[in-house]
């Protein structure tokens, strides 16, 4: 009978057995783990840096906020150019050769930054504000060429913008209704109104924060906070967390590929890393069937430490099969 199909009784035949109390072991270990986790929890607590709001961003860095919003309106922000699953852009769509699962999957979380992040919130905020309503009317009735002209000029002017009494001031120029619109959006954001307006989806309850997170990620303010907390991509990003806490250390292999050339500089780094990790995870699961890898434990004598009691006893001599040398009576 092969060892594969043996019962436990057959498998352990001849092996000395010792007393073993499984439930006692589990109970003791469970209590020990509770004590250990409690001591760690009391001594080190857990990380909880408060979430960043659009309100905080608009108050702390109004120029970055207005620059980001202007980029959204001119469809030049990372989110506007992203592509699937948010929109029809292509800047962040990755592929391996001719294969692009991202492009194939298409748009599943539709996001229209100009409308979702700027125009719709401004339209909602224009009630009771004749200046803003007039600015929006001017903007909406202008040609695409005219809008581009205003936005290009305003974007260039923002490079030398200053903050005066909480407002973003730029040099005089032909910006059309853009300064009024941006000033209003900044005002709404500074009161916290934009946090709610971006999260709303026409329902009372809301749990999807795709829009506000994408909007904030288009600016430089959030990225600066992440970098200060050693969380940037080239700082082993995702596996770290705020403070000196261990973070998701189990993601070290995933994060490592982002630090290693040529993956670190590849335009399709995310897809390459995901492919590598799916492959490695599959290989880990299939270790028992991979020649060479499955033989490593025999070659590395760690098992001799683990089973040192077993190896302390020399192997029993092999049974000698008597050989009948007498002539066959038949």
């Amino acid at each position, binding site marked *: 009978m092969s060892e594969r199909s043996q019962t436990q009784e057959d498998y352990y035949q001849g092996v000395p057995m010792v007393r*073993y109390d499984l439930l006692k072991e*589990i109970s003791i270990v469970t209590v020990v783990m509770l004590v250990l986790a409690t001591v760690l929890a009391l001594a080190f607590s857990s990380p909880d840096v408060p979430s*960043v709001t659009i309100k905080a961003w608009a108050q702390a860095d109004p120029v970055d906020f207005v620059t980001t919003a202007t980029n959204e309106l001119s469809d030049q922000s990372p989110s506007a150019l992203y592509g*699937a699953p948010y929109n029809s852009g292509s800047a962040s769509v990755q592929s391996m050769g001719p294969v692009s699962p991202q492009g194939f999957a298409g748009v599943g979380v539709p996001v229209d930054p100009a409308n979702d992040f700027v125009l719709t919130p401004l339209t909602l905020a224009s009630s009771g504000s004749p200046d803003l309503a007039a600015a929006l009317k001017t903007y909406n009735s202008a040609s695409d060429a005219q809008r581009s002209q205003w936005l290009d000029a305003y974007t260039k002017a923002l490079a030398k913008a200053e903050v005066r009494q909480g407002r973003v001031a730029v040099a005089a120029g032909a910006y059309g209704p853009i300064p009024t619109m941006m000033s209003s959006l900044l005002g709404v954001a500074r009161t916290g109104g934009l946090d709610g307006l971006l999260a709303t989806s026409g329902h009372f309850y809301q749990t999807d924060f795709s829009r506000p997170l994408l909007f904030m990620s288009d600016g430089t303010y959030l990225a600066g906070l992440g970098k200060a*907390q050693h969380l940037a991509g080239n700082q082993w990003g995702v596996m770290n967390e705020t403070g000196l806490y261990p973070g998701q250390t189990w993601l070290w292999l995933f994060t490592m590929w982002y630090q290693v050339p040529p993956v670190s500089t590849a335009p399709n780094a995310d897809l390459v890393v995901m492919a590598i990790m799916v492959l490695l995870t599959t290989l880990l*699961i299939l270790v028992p069937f991979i020649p060479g890898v499955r033989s490593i434990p025999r070659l590395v004598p760690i098992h001799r430490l683990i089973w040192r009691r077993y190896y302390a006893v020399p192997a029993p001599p092999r049974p000698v099969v008597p050989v009948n040398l007498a002539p066959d009576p038949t």
Partner: protein
Amino acid sequence: MTTPASPGPGDTVTSAPTEPTPVRRETGGWTGAAAGWLERRLPIGKLLPTRQPYYIGSWVYVFGVVTIAALIWVVLSGVILTFSGPQWWHVSSVGRFINSLHFWSVQLFFIFMVLHLWGQFFMASWRDGRARTWMVGGLIFAVSILTAFTGYLSQQNFDSQWIAISAKDAFNSTGIGSFFNPLNFGQMYGLHVMLAPLAVIALVVVHLVMVRIKGVVKPIGRPGESR
């Protein structure tokens, strides 16, 4: 429907000494087949063994049990956090402590799971018909990573925001961004408190049953031995 008349006053009730009625097991049908299978494959002596081979006297054998113990506290602290809602621990000192317990239990869970994994690798524990046990263990590791990831996204703090923004590109690049959207708190929270832990627990139960059915593997053979 009639019921047997109960004996009246003065009636003499006699009963012959009876043998205990033998329990007859019906082996037919799905239930009978399942009962028979369980009885053959996993009798109580295997599920809760009182004797084990003498060579299990090593700390490496404890790592698996320690991992399960940590998982128990991960689940229990997680249940308390779930009952109180995702914002509770940000505003309550008790909540912060429970969250810390959850956090450190998760860290311990992963530390000992990795030690268990390496220990089993160097013992080549997939030998003698135990490959499927190893495979389920590998799957538990992968699903646990996904479960912890959704947990980090459910914290509702700066870490959640940052991890969501950073990780979205990886999922989007594979084409699953529409179905697994790290920016969607509701989706991540639902996965974290229900489906993902259910998957981990179910796989751990399967893994344990497989270990108990087969028993621990014998040591790698000495030079000259066949194992």
